[in-house]
């Protein structure tokens, strides 16, 4: 009955993409926000961004929605809209103060994630993007379990070039395989820094073991792209502004655009294949 309830609510969602890592601080939320903005740039598409990082919800700040509250209606919880075609949900909107710590054990976190899927009136959605916390635990198991009621197109896995990150990301890739979650591909963030003054490139996080490229080769997953470190990205996130809008011609944005396009192509192809089967 629970699964049926979730299936009914998520029936109008065409594509679902999970943004995962395993490692913290590599840019999952940053990428999720950018992906959402990028997809919503097409005004004919309806985009939903769901933040299931219960302890450290970054999405409200990154989307410029701090201080917003969730409203209830007859049809459920209303997402907070950044644009007409871009709705957001996060535990951040349920806190009375942004510094309130959500100190919950697994079962309570799972309960909220289920509510986010069951009680939020997303409406018709072309893309549901789910931002996750680092790790391979309750939140990840639950989201995969609950979303089995609909379907997940796949996971985008974010990393940085150094081995300490890749070490955790390999575990995440194994998690995806364990729970049969297709991997759309890997994004390598903070991949090099070009000095705006001397134009020299430095590796702030040196890929001592070959970076994401080598890892993807070894594990037979797609490398969607590499994004350089750009201080403007962090600034845009802090200010809740869209990096897409702030720095559309920067090298980082060019990388992001190519990655977003590849994700769209993957989803469209996946959808087409599903329709063929049906």
């Amino acid at each position, binding site marked *: 009955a629970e699964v049926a309830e979730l299936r009914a609510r998520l029936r109008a969602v065409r594509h679902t993409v999970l943004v995962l890592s395993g490692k913290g601080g*590599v840019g999952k939320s940053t990428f999720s926000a950018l992906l959402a903005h990028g997809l919503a740039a097409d005004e004919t598409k309806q985009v939903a961004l769901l933040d299931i990082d219960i302890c450290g919800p970054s999405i409200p700040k990154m989307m410029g929605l701090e201080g917003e509250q969730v409203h209830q209606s007859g049809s459920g919880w209303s997402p907070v809209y950044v644009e007409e075609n871009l709705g957001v949900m996060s535990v951040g909107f349920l806190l009375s103060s942004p510094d309130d710590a959500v*100190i919950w054990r697994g079962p309570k976190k799972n309960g909220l994630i289920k509510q986010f899927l069951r009680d939020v009136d997303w409406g018709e959605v072309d893309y549901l993007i789910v931002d996750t*916390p*680092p*790790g391979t635990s*309750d939140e990840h198991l639950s989201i995969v379990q609950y979303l089995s009621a609909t379907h997940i197109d796949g996971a985008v896995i974010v990393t940085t070039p150094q081995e300490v990150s890749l070490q955790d990301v390999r575990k995440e890739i*194994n*998690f995806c395989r*364990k729970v049969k979650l297709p991997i759309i591909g890997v994004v390598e963030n903070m991949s090099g820094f070009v000095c705006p003054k001397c134009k020299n490139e430095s590796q702030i996080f040196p890929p001592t073991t070959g970076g994401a490229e080598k890892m993807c080769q070894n594990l037979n997953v797609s490398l969607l792209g590499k994004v350089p470190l750009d201080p403007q990205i962090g600034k845009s996130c802090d200010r809740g502004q869209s990096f897409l809008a702030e720095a559309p011609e920067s090298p980082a944005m060019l990388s992001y655009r190519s990655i977003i396009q590849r994700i769209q192509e993957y989803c469209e192809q996946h959808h087409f294949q599903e329709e063929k089967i049906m």
Partner: protein
Amino acid sequence: TLAERTNLAGVRHILLVLSGKGGVGKSTISTELALALCNAGKRVGILDVDLCGPSIPRMLRVQDSAVHQCDSGWVPVFVGQDKAIALMSIGFLLERPDDAVVWRGPKKNALIKQFVTDVAWGDLDFLIVDTPPGTSDEHISAVEALRPYHLLGAVLVTTPQ
């Protein structure tokens, strides 16, 4: 007291390294703090309670080590030039380094309790506890399990943004 007859009886100070945010350098700082204290002649142990993403073994170049049992429980892995730092991490219990630890809260809590009470730390000046990001199971369990002992306090790590 019960505390006196346990594996933590010989530990003088316990320090938690926390953040909330991931990727800010908790494990890096835990490692550097341990090495610095060791250099200053202190006996140091590191307890890595990041079960999903244990970074400490690699940072101390002991990722290929295994742990052994003794009468009082697990023997920590001794690292450093003179084997002066004692380390316990789930990293040592994995069959393969890329194995994902896909556990829900209760199972994580059980292992953390064991890491606190069943590791034969011996005499230490400092036990540094490295944590994963967040404020959830691992943090609640670690604090609850460590509360009867000499919990010195927490060092919080962040980045500027």
